[in-house]
């Protein structure tokens, strides 16, 4: 049915040849929509008098390519393009509204907020500006303002962009069922002509189902995403996590390997390592873990970082606790969202800074988010501090929300809870 099924291997080969200079870029025979968009925009700015409009189109195309490929290198190219647009015309509105979008990609969240505010002042009725504002506020941890911006966005233009943000905020505020309801609306509102957008919405619907412990619904959403957009790395990773949770480890390995072959992101490589470990293949697991470290070191060498992903990896796998802490603190300097607080909490805990860990874990749960990982971390920290009843409550909550929340950590949560319950029992018996 779908020619796109057979597309990827050929594309990868073509990209390889193009990189080696053996094939002109235009010869990427079966280019993706983003590739075509980039090519069209490059043509527009390649003439004698390139326009701001042309550079904005190019920036947009690179942003789309970044999403589609999972390759953050394109954010830099988007930034260069939009800078050229503003050089030609400093007041160019379409360029002004694209700037915060690019800053978000580059993880300059404060810069994104300032740029989004500038664009909003120019066009206060443009829903787009409330999208970039929502994202910037959410990453900076200013959730009340994020909610306000998202509300304005959905009032101005209900549709895929506003629904995805509304769903996310509902989930953060502890309303998983409400999040799922809007995530479904987002899927329906995604254009069939934008496979990546539709697949993105499906993957995030899958994530919501997974967080609620509904593996069947999650798997169905990921499978639909793969049907819409074959070999989508986020969907492969999501489905891999479900299969691992179900104990179907060979399938999980295959899915993660395919995901990593497309986008070698540290979190995917680490997850692959975890499945190998669960399957009893310690050698392969260690190879993946070493690869994560290698990617991290290379990134560090050029002054950039995978920050949160790596910090979590180090903390989760009890490797380099001080490095985990350093990365988590670096990350926390630039953003204030609950998942950064959570990462900081976990890294502090693993390096024995329990008081700081408890404060960060408290911040991570400040919205009442029903997320098993957040509760597991809070539970482990409370247990280390000797707050057994609080610890047991968090661990029970984590396992109640999603008993499969993490292949490596869920068994530890169960063991920790069992130990706490045994101790409580023993203490009661002791009193008697």
């Amino acid at each position, binding site marked *: *049915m*779908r020619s796109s099924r057979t597309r990827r291997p050929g594309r*990868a080969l073509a990209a390889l040849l193009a*990189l080696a200079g053996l094939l002109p*870029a235009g010869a990427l025979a079966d*280019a993706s929509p983003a590739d075509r968009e980039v*090519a069209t925009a490059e043509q527009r*700015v*390649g003439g004698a008098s390139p326009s701001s409009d042309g550079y904005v189109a190019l920036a*947009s195309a690179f942003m789309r390519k970044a*999403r589609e490929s*999972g*390759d*953050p*290198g*394109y954010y*830099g190219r988007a930034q*260069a393009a939009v800078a*050229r647009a503003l050089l030609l015309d400093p007041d160019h*509105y379409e360029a002004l509204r694209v700037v915060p*979008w690019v800053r*978000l*990609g580059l993880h300059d969240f404060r810069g994104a907020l300032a740029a989004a505010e500038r664009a909003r002042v120019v066009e206060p*009725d443009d829903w*787009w500006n409330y*999208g970039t504002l929502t994202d910037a506020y959410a990453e900076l941890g200013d959730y009340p303002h994020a909610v306000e911006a*998202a509300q304005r966005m*959905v009032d101005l*233009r*209900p*549709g*895929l*962009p506003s629904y*995805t943000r509304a769903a*996310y905020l*509902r989930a953060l505020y502890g309303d998983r069922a*409400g999040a799922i*309801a*809007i995530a479904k609306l987002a899927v329906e*509102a*995604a*254009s*069939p002509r*934008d496979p990546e*957008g539709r697949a*993105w*919405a499906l993957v*995030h619907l899958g994530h919501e189902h997974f967080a609620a412990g509904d593996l069947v619904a999650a798997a169905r959403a990921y499978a639909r995403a793969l049907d819409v957009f074959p070999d989508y790395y986020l969907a492969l990773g999501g489905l891999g996590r479900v299969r691992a949770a179900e104990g179907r480890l060979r399938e999980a390995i295959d899915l993660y390997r395919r995901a*990593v072959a497309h*986008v*070698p*992101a540290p979190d995917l490589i680490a997850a692959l390592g975890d499945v190998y470990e669960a399957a009893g293949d310690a050698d392969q697991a260690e190879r993946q873990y070493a690869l994560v470290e*290698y*990617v991290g070191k290379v*990134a560090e060498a*050029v002054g950039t*970082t*995978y920050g949160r*992903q790596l910090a979590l990896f180090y903390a989760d796998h009890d490797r380099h606790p001080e490095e985990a802490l350093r990365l988590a603190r670096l990350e926390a300097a630039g*953003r204030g969202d609950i998942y950064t607080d959570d990462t900081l909490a976990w890294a502090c805990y693993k390096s024995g800074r329990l008081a700081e860990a408890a404060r960060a874990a408290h911040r991570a749960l400040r919205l009442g988010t029903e997320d098993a990982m957040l509760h597991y971390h809070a539970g482990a920290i409370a247990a280390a501090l000797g707050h057994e009843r609080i610890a047991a409550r968090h661990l029970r909550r984590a396992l109640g929300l999603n008993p499969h929340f993490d292949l490596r950590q869920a068994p530890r949560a169960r063991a920790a809870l069992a130990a706490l319950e045994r101790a409580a029992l023993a203490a009661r018996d002791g009193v008697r």
Partner: protein
Amino acid sequence: MKSHGRTPSPSVVGACAALGLGALLLTPAVPTARASSHREAPLISQDPEADNTDTYAFVSPDRPDTVTIVANYIPLEEPAGGPNFAAFGDDVLYAINIDNDGDGEEDIQYQFRFRTTIRNRESFLYNTGPITSLDDPNWNMPQTYTVTRVERGKRSVLATRVKIPPVNVGPRSTPDYEALAAAAVTDLPGGVEVFAGQRDDPFFVDLGSVFDLAGLRPFNNAHLLPLDPGPGVDGVGGFNTHSIVIQVPIDQLTRNHKMPRGPDDPAAVIGVYASASRQRMRVLRDDGSIQNGERWVQVSRLAEPLINELIIPLGMKDFWNRSDPAHDERFAQFYRSPELARVVNVLYGDALVALGGAPARTTNRDDLVLILLTGVPLPGGHNLNSTGKTKADLIRLNTAIAPTHPVGQGDPLGVLNGDLAGFPNGRRLEDDVTDIELRAVADGYGTLLNGLFGLPNHSPNNQIGDGVNQNDVPFLEHFPYVGTPNQGYAHEHHRVGSTSTPHLD
């Protein structure tokens, strides 16, 4: 950015993806930017399901006591659209709105809500065998709809579970498409007929040339940037759309619920627009209720053709789409001083003058305001389709002006050529609205309107056009009139039109 000769991955992360994982260990990798470990929700989004393409309203030639309204959605639908064939959105509120007292506010609304049933959840296929009836189990995702009439706040459900035909996949999947489409024509109480489903897009226009600096291929040599003249090319040819077609007895639409006594009866003229809305909700639920559907936000509207494309400035399109026609006074300046007139003068002004014509007026275009926002009165106290002073973008149809021709056979220049049953009195499928609007903007109104109203009739301004003078697919003589959709298996785009344009008497 000219130096960007190659589009493959600019950073080593992308290169690793291309090379495969193993190569990562061999390559001295240097990523050039931070990774995306934030949740990057979509910002760019198209919304074709909630995008009006064209709206038509005419007195039905084969049932002249009724009005037919066609509301089209989903632009440029590729017939070979598998595996994700186009469909109406289940979460979109589609509406046909009728103003019958001239205030720009809808007095009657026909609402259409669709629902898709997936017969086999394990399959992602549109169909698993030939579809030979609307209940055929081979059709895996049939869609039905509900029709609700709202009149001044009073809702009545006219029909539920109305069937629609599948899309026209090809000779194996949909072997007798006409029969499937005919089976989806549904009678509702009170003599109303409805149809919803895929159709050939009845619009015809040289999109490729008109939106390349207002190029008109037959007049390519007269353009500021001249090219060799040639026949127009139908940019919409071979593409489909999704149509909602409703035929309603006239006395159910007029303000006094009576057949008008004649064209000058104040109740004779109705204003029509089509819209699409999506649901808003509270981002945070305070009381645990779902709160979906508490309010609809209009995201698209359409009445007169090409207004959004040619009149409304780029930065105002979203705002225009969500605003109510009753408040269109605020857009009147763009009609009165149309950018298009300035563009025509810049691109064709010298040639028009050299050939004995004149530049178009670029300001004080009250003629355009009249035609497009209030309707046109006739001399001697008679009426074509005026609804008074309120400026609103509506298709204004005088329901007491009898049809002049069977569907598809009216004069393509409509009122310009004295065919009062055509555009801008309503809009018929065959009306060449592109040429009519171009000539109106360029002050080439023709002798009839020059004589009646003193409107300018410069020549050759009155001959311009895009060279696409008729639709590529024949219309049906009977309801729903809009042509059979192009099939996915075999269809032809960009059919060549004519080097001549419709003749103005």
